[in-house]
């Protein structure tokens, strides 16, 4: 048997103190499709970036057709016939498909875009793509853009294709089309690595599955010899005890009732599809799901930052007993209704805080409007800043330090501290412990628990299933903008959630 088209041996990559990849090995033959499976943050993309020349491994070797190679830039990767299709397309929107495909190539001979188009057509016919080379990118659907990216690497003569979550943005129908193309490429002798979380897709397209978990290599299994249950088990691992305290909710009443909301984003993708749930006071409602399943849009919709297509968001005001409709109201209108809604957004420095302002001024963001004076009142925010710094043990030279200069964990403490200080009745937090070390993470869990004890309805969007299971009273699972299940926290099973996260109900197509 000939040498594999590409083989990785014992690849290790660290960023600072974080080990992103540890001793990972995998190999792909010509005419083989390998699926790379793992949760968010398991190191899949890092690994693939090392093959495509974006990162450079600290340790380990890469072999192409049995020969050891050094890939230190995307150019080198091209040279060895490796092409990567990133999740975020790198295309010039204003250019046509053909122009994007030929961009940066130093071909000999006269530059003639018509000839390029003709050659692109050859490729599309060979593999069964469906695309017009003269169409502008900005007029294209997401799947068409992806097709352009794939043709781009094929045009450059790639034999090894890496696709980073190609189906995350596709409808089931488009996914089927993509898979048909991939199978044709496989017949043509290309080697394909596909990164995905979706188990049914793994089972339908791949020959072998490589599973990573938290940067470590878990194992390789033959697709025909495995099933969803085994893969889920490998992907999420055994339950780890974290010892996060969880009290039993007391006097829980309905606080926020979401009924059938729909939302379509700028690209025309339906991001929220008929979402319904209830958040109750004195309870932590977890939201689990693969990144980009609609978590961000859901929270922003509730906070009044997204215009919904339909559905209802009803807030039960505990002080008046009234039911207020929050749908399509602005953040100010929501506040004026007397709704005390706090929101810790995912984008801390881009949305929740202003990086160049100091801690005091950031404390004021929520409260500066109070009072009739034209001037700002900095005493209370100063006191609040001091209190947050002390209570949450924020490491900072002082309250007048710009938050941009704080470390990630301290930035988050400032943001959470401010949102909690508004004495909310509903607290929404999106990935509040992302990028934080263990101690900071526990500090945040404690804060959320404290709020819960105070009767706040807490909505917690998380990515670590162990945390969700230990912290939350109920867990809502999102998959591709739909609710695939709402389960009880204390009795939840990890693989049960894992299955729900990848349970594509097939959509309407």
């Amino acid at each position, binding site marked *: 048997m000939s040498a594999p088209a590409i083989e990785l041996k014992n690849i290790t990559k660290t960023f600072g103190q974080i080990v992103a990849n540890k001793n990972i090995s995998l190999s792909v033959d010509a005419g083989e499709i390998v699926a790379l499976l793992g949760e968010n943050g398991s190191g899949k993309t890092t690994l693939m970036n090392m093959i495509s020349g*974006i*990162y450079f491994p600290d340790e380990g070797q890469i072999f192409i057709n049995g020969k050891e190679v050094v890939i230190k830039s*995307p*150019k080198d990767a*091209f040279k060895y016939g490796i092409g990567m299709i990133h999740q975020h397309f*790198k*295309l*010039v*929107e*204003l*250019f046509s498909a053909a*122009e994007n495909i*030929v*961009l*940066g*190539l*130093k*071909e000999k001979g006269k*530059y003639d875009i018509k000839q390029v188009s003709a050659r692109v057509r050859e490729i599309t016919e060979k593999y069964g793509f469906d695309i017009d080379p003269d169409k*502008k990118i*900005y007029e294209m659907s997401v799947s068409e853009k992806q097709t352009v990216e794939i043709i781009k690497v094929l045009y450059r003569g790639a034999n090894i294709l890496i696709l980073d979550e190609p189906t995350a943005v596709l409808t089931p129908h488009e996914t089927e089309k993509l898979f048909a193309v991939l199978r044709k490429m496989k017949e043509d002798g290309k080697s394909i690595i596909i990164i995905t979380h979706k188990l049914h897709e793994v089972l339908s397209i791949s020959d072998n599955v490589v599973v990573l978990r938290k940067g470590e290599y878990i194992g390789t299994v033959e697709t025909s010899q495995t099933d969803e249950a085994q893969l889920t088990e490998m992907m999420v691992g055994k339950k780890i005890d974290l010892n996060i305290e969880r009290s039993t909710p007391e006097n829980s009443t309905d606080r926020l009732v979401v009924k059938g909301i729909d939302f379509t984003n700028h690209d025309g993708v339906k991001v929220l599809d008929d979402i319904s749930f209830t958040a109750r006071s004195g309870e932590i409602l977890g939201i689990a799901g693969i990144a980009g399943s609609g978590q961000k849009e859901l929270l922003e919709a509730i906070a009044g930052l997204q215009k919904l297509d339909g559905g209802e968001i009803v807030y039960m005001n505990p002080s008046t007993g009234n039911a207020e409709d929050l749908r399509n109201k602005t953040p100010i209108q929501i506040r004026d209704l007397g709704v005390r809604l706090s929101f810790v957004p995912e984008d801390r420095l881009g949305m929740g805080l202003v990086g160049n302002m100091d801690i005091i001024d950031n404390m004021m963001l929520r409260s500066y409007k109070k009072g009739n004076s034209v001037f700002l009142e900095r005493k209370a925010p100063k006191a609040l800043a001091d209190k947050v710094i002390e209570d949450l043990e924020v490491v900072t030279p002082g309250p007048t330090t710009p938050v941009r200069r704080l470390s990630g964990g301290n930035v988050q403490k400032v943001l959470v501290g401010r949102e909690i200080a508004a004495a909310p009745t509903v607290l929404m937090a999106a990935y509040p412990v992302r990028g934080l070390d263990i101690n900071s993470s526990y500090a945040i869990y404690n804060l959320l628990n404290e709020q819960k004890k105070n009767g706040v309805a807490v909505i917690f969007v998380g990515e670590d299933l162990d945390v969700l299971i230990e912290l939350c009273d109920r867990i809502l699972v999102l998959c591709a903008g739909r609710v695939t299940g709402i389960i009880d926290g204390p009795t939840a099973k990890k693989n049960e959630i894992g299955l729900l996260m990848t349970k594509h109900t097939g959509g309407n197509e």
Partner: protein
Amino acid sequence: MPIIVTKIIAFLAASVVQGIPLIYGSTGEIITEKSGHLNLGIPGIMYMGGISGIIGGYLYEHYTENPIGIIAVLISLFASLFGSAIMALIYSFLTVTLRANQNVTGLALTIFGVGVGNFFGGSLLKFFGETGSIYLAATSAAYRTTIPFLSKIPVVGTLLFSYGFLAYLAIIIALLASWFLNKTRYGLALRAVGESPATADAAGVNVTAYKYLATLIGGMIAGLGGLYFVMDSTGGGWTNGGFGDKGWLAIAIVIFALWKPKNSILCSLIFGGLYILCVYIPGLSAPMKEIIKMMPYLVTVAVLIFISIRNKRENMPPASLGTSYFREER
């Protein structure tokens, strides 16, 4: 010939003379903007292109007994290109390498260029112990040489063949720029740099080199507009501030021309016409003349508004215009 026809022909010919510097300026700015850099220093560069040409021509005429036209042209042309190139390099060093704010850098460049122009325009003779104001007879005459015979044809000769070679060069450069941007792979790469430097970078385009070259070549082209103005339109002399606001108009024409050098030819000629329309409308009162002079600016504002309301993708500036590119370190 009826007097009205004569007047119209004279007006059209004068429009061309006014429009040529604008063609240079806007073509230069389009090339620069295509790399993602809004160069508000173009007015200063055009001043610099003019004064550098004057200095070159003056030195030659000063030290030569019988200046030869073609040599005077070559020396001043080279000097002008050199002066503009220095300015463009200052701009690109600051904005590309040092990633300084493009608007502030551009404004500073304009202040600097206008200062240099007006300083040497007013004081150059003084350095050589002469008095009076600069007048480069031989050099200017060479620049103003028109095509023999053809320019003497009535009407057609005046309209098409009565200009110095720089006028024709302007149109050739604009057409070449158009061809370059749309029909070559380097043009494609340059447009990609302006639209999305990260994409171009990933595709293997040397973003920094393209930005430098575009700013440099764009600046040198714009500088020729200043050279044409001093050597041809005004006949080899310098009046302080005489070039006026043409540099800013050139930047405005870029929008008017929708970032297409081909369009900029016609737009520049129209603006040239608007610029001197007041001279050719008979019976205007003095205040009315000033109102008519407002036309180019009012038209620009109208176009700006129209384009923003229509909000069409193709009519937008290069997407990365005004922002520095920094490939994040891993």
